C-alpha cells in the first residue's frame, strides 16, 4: 500500500568525481549582490526565516543532478517534487509555510477548511474556495478536483504516484479517465464548490492524503491533445503562483509568474522571483560548486552537499560558507530490522539492542553531520508523535553496553552468543559500512553475524522483503530505512509494525514481522478517531516496538544543505527536510 518515499536517486553516494572548478554554464544567475545585509549563522533556517523579504524580481535557479520522475502532480512520488509542485499547483490541503515543527501543521489550501467526516468516518466532505483561477482564467470547480484525482487512477499512463485513493476509496477497479467510460463513483460533486469522498473503511488521516499533490485540480479540456495524458507534464495546468513557460525534457524547465494567481487565496505560497529556472541532469559536484559560486540558488534534490571538497569548506567552523548552511533531519530513519520469527527470544533480541555500538554505525552513515543523529526511537523527531525515550541506553551509552547485552544473552539461554544473518544492500556504501560496524560490535559479546549482501533493485521484493526467504536464510538482521508519506505516526508506523501489513510473498515492509495484538488494536483505535486526537497513540506504539526489540534504530538521517546568501525567505520545511520551495525569493 504505502511505498517508501524517494529522496532522489543515487544522491546518497558521495560524488567521486573530482571537484571541478565551477565554470558557470548552468543557468543565468540572479543579481550578484554579494554583500550580505545581516549576519547569518549555521542551522539558522531550522528555526527561523533567513533573509525575510517581500522584494520581487530576479531569476531563481534550481539545479538537479537527475530528472524528476514527472512534473505532473498526479504522477510524482519524489519528495523534492512534492515540495516543488506547490509553485504551480494547489491541493485540497497542504502544510503550513512556517519554520520548525510548525511546518508539519496541516492547513486547508484549495479547500476552505479540513475535511468533515460523517457516517462513522466513511464520508469526507470538503468545500473549496470559489474564486481560485487556473492559468487560463477559468474558475476552479470541485469537478476539476475530482478529474485530477481520476487521473491518478490511470496507472498505465501515469504510473509513478502513490495509490492511496485506489486503496481507500470505494471504487478500486476504476481505471482512470482515459480508459473508463463512466466516471469515478466514490467521489461526488453536489455543486461547484463541494466535493464528497466515499471511503471503503474509516481512515482518520484522510486530510493528509489530500495534501499529496494528487488532489490538484485539472480541467478535462486541458488534459487532451498536445498536453494530454502522459504529455501533461510538459505543461501542467497551473493553479499556483507560477506557470510553465517551457520544458525541455532532461534539460531545463522555465516557469514564469501566473497572472491569474491571487495571493489572497493561496497564503502558503509566494510569487517573488520573476522567473524560475530548473536545470536538470547537472553533475552533482558542479551543483555543489555552483551553489558556492552563486551560479545556482538551490540544489533541488534536497539531499545536500555531496562533494567532499565543498563539504569540508562548509563544515570548517568560522568559514563564510559555514554560516550559510543548515543540517536538518530529513525525516528518513535508518534501521536494522530484527526479525521476530528468526530470533524469537526477546532476550536475544534485546542483547542485540544493547551490544550494538551506535557511534560506529553513526560514523558508517557519515557521522553526526551528514550521517545523522543517533536514534533511540522508531519515529524521527520531525514527525508528529515523536517522543524521546531511551530504552536501551542508545544515547546514554552510545558505544554499546556489553555487560547488559551479556546479561540478556544468559537470560536467553545463549550465554556464549549465537549466529544469525545480516542482510544489506551492496550498492549502498553507507549500508555496507553500517553492516560491518554492527558485525564488529556484536562480535564483542559473541553474537556472530554472516553478512549477506544483495543488490538494492530486488532487496524488498525478493530478499529482505520476502519473509520465507528471510526465514530459510536465517536473516535475523536486515538493514533498511523508512520515510513517511505524511508527517504523523500513522504514516510512519503502520507499514512497519501493523500485523496486517505482513506480506507473505515479497514486498513486505513489516520486515521484523511484528504482529502484536496490543499494537494492532492501537492502530484500529487510531483509525476510528480524528487525526489530531490520536497523537498520544504513536509514542505508545513506538515504545511497544522498542520493548519488543523488533527494530534497532541507527540514525535519524540528516543532510547538509547550503543556502545561497542571495535567497530570501529561506527556511527548512520540517517534514521534507529541505527548503520550502514555495516561498523563496531573491534579494
Amino acid at each position, binding site marked *: 500500500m504505502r511505498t517508501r518515499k524517494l529522496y532522489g536517486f543515487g544522491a546518497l553516494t558521495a560524488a567521486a568525481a573530482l571537484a571541478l572548478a565551477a565554470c558557470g554554464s548552468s543557468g543565468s544567475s540572479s543579481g550578484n549582490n554579494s554583500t550580505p545585509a545581516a549576519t547569518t549563522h549555521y542551522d539558522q533556517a531550522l528555526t527561523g526565516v533567513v533573509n525575510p523579504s517581500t522584494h520581487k524580481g530576479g531569476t531563481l535557479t534550481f539545479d538537479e543532478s537527475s530528472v524528476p520522475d514527472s512534473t505532473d502532480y498526479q504522477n510524482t512520488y519524489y519528495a523534492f517534487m512534492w515540495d516543488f509542485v506547490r509553485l504551480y499547483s494547489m491541493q485540497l490541503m497542504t502544510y503550513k509555510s512556517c519554520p520548525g515543527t510548525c511546518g508539519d501543521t496541516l492547513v486547508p489550501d484549495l479547500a476552505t477548511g479540513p475535511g468533515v467526516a460523517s457516517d462513522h468516518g466513511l464520508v469526507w466532505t470538503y468545500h473549496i474556495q470559489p474564486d481560485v483561477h487556473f492559468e487560463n482564467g477559468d474558475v476552479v470547480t470541485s469537478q476539476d478536483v475530482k478529474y485530477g484525482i481520476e487521473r491518478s487512477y490511470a496507472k498505465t499512463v501515469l504510473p509513478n504516484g502513490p495509490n492511496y485513493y485506489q486503496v481507500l476509496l470505494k471504487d478500486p477497479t476504476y481505471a482512470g479517465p482515459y480508459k473508463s467510460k463512466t466516471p469515478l463513483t466514490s467521489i461526488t460533486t453536489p455543486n461547484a464548490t463541494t466535493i464528497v469522498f466515499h471511503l471503503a473503511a474509516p481512515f482518520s488521516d484522510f486530510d493528509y492524503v489530500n495534501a499529496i499533490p494528487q488532489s490538484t485540480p485539472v480541467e478535462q479540456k486541458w488534459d487532451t491533445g498536445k498536453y494530454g495524458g502522459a504529455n501533461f507534464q510538459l505543461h501542467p495546468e497551473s493553479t499556483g503562483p507560477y506557470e510553465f513557460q517551457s520544458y525541455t525534457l532532461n534539460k531545463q524547465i522555465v516557469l514564469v509568474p501566473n497572472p491569474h494567481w491571487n495571493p489572497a487565496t493561496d497564503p502558503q505560497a509566494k510569487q517573488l522571483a520573476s522567473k524560475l529556472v530548473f536545470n536538470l541532469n547537472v553533475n552533482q559536484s558542479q551543483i555543489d560548486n555552483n551553489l558556492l559560486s552563486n551560479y545556482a540558488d538551490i540544489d533541488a534534490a534536497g539531499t545536500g552537499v555531496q562533494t567532499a571538497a565543498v563539504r569540508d569548506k562548509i*563544515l570548517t567552523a568560522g568559514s563564510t560558507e559555514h554560516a550559510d548552511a543548515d543540517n536538518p533531519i530529513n525525516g528518513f530513519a535508518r534501521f536494522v530490522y530484527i526479525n521476530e520469527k528468526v530470533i524469537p527470544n526477546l532476550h536475544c533480541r534485546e542483547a542485540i539492542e544493547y551490544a550494538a555500538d551506535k557511534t*560506529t554505525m553513526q560514523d558508517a552513515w557519515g557521522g553526526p553531520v551528514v550521517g545523522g543523529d543517533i536514534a533511540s526511537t522508531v519515529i524521527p523527531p520531525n514527525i508528529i508523535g515523536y517522543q524521546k525515550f531511551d530504552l536501551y541506553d542508545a544515547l546514554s551509552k552510545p558505544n554499546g553496553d556489553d555487560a547488559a547485552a551479556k546479561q540478556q544473552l544468559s537470560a536467553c539461554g545463549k550465554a556464549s552468543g549465537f549466529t544469525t544473518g545480516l542482510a544489506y544492500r551492496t550498492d549502498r556504501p553507507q549500508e555496507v559500512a553500517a553492516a560491518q*560496524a554492527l558485525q564488529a560490535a556484536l562480535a564483542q559479546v559473541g553474537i556472530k553475524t554472516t553478512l549477506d549482501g544483495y543488490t538494492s533493485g530486488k532487496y524488498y521484493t525478493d530478499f529482505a522483503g520476502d519473509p520465507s526467504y528471510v526465514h530459510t536464510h536465517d536473516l535475523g538482521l536486515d538493514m533498511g530505512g523508512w520515510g513517511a508519506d505524511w508527517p504523523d505516526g500513522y504514516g510512519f508506523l503502520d507499514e512497519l509494525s501493523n500485523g496486517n501489513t505482513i506480506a507473505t510473498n515479497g514486498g513486505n515492509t513489516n520486515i521484523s514481522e511484528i504482529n502484536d495484538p496490543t499494537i494492532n488494536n492501537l492502530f484500529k483505535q487510531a483509525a476510528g478517531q480524528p487525526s489530531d486526537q490520536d497523537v498520544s497513540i504513536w509514542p505508545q506504539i513506538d515504545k511497544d516496538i522498542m520493548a519488543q526489540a523488533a527494530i534497532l534504530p541507527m540514525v535519524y538521517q540528516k543532510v547538509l544543505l547550503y543556502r545561497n546568501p542571495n535567497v530570501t525567505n529561506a527556511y527548512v520545511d520540517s517534514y521534507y527536510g529541505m527548503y520550502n520551495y514555495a516561498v523563496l525569493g531573491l534579494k
Partner: protein
Amino acid sequence: MAAPLEISAAESDTTPQAPEGLSGKRIEGRSLGQIAWLRLRRDWVAIGGGIFIIILLLVAIFGPLVVQNPDIYHPNLINPTFQGPNGAFGGISLAHPLGVEPQTGRDMLSRVVYGARISLLIGFLSTVLAVVIGVFFGLIAGYFGGWVDTVIARVMDVFLAFPLLVFAIALVGVIPTSSFGLSGNVLRVTMLIFIIGFFSWPYMGRIIRGQTLSLREREFVDAARSLGARGPYILLRELLPNLWGPILVYSTLLIPTNILFEAALSYLGVGIVPPTPSWGAMLSNAVQNGFYYIDPMYMVIPGLAIFLTVMAFNLFGDGLRDALDPKTR
C-alpha cells in the same frame, strides 16, 4: 627455446680432453637449469622482484600472527565530522604504523597484511588453474593438429574475445550467498579463483600450442616416434619437459594479471565480502566514497601494495624469461 641437449660430462663416453684451466679447475658441463640460474643471479632487478615476492609471501603467511585484529574499530581515532583519521598521514602512530582507516579507525597495517593473503591466494590458485587447463589444451591442440587444433583454437578465441569483466560481475551477482555447500567468503574466494582461472587459460593455451607445434617437428620427437612411442608418452615425456621454461615464465607473468583482476572485481564491489580486507575493496572505498579527499593515504597505501606486488612479479617474470631464453632479450 633451447633444445634438450642435456648431455652431461659424466654420461658421454669420450671425456673431452679439455685443457685444465689456469686455476686448475675442471670445466664442467652445466645443465639448462644451472645456466638459467647463473643468468638470473646476475639480473639484480629480477632478484629484487623475487626477494620482494618472498617477503610478501612470508608476510601473508606469518603476518597475521603479529599484527592486530583488522576488524577492531577505533572510533576515537576519527574526527566524527570529517570522518578522517586524527593526525598526519592517515593517523600514523606507534600503535598504527600505517595509520588507520577513515570512518572506522581500523588499523591499516593489519588490513594491508590481511589483504595480501587474499590477493596472493586468489592470484596463485587462479593461475594454477589457468596453467593446468591451458597446458592441457595447448599440448593437445599443438600435437594433434587438424580439426582438434581448429576446435580448441576457436574456443580459445571465443574466450579471449569474451567481455570477461562484465561476465564476472554478472556471475558474481547471480550466484546466491550460499551454494555448492559453501557460503560467505569461502564461496566467494572459490568462485573468484574459478572465474579468473577459467578465463585466463587461453593465454597459456596459445603459447603452449605454439611451442608444441614447433617442438613436435623436432628430431628427438621423430626419434621417439620411430621407436614406437605413442601420443601420451610423447606428450608427457618428450614435449612437456621441454615446456617447463615457458610455463614457468608465463605463470609468473599471469599471477600479477590475476591479482589485478581480483582487485578490479573487488573495486567494483563483486569481490570479497566485507569486512575481510582486500586491497581492491580498500581502493574502491577510498575513491568511490570520496575518502581520498579527506585521507589520501587511504588510497595511496593499498594502491602502492597492488603496484609493488604486480611490479615485483612482472620484473621477476621478465628476468626469468631472459634467463631461460636469452634469444628473446
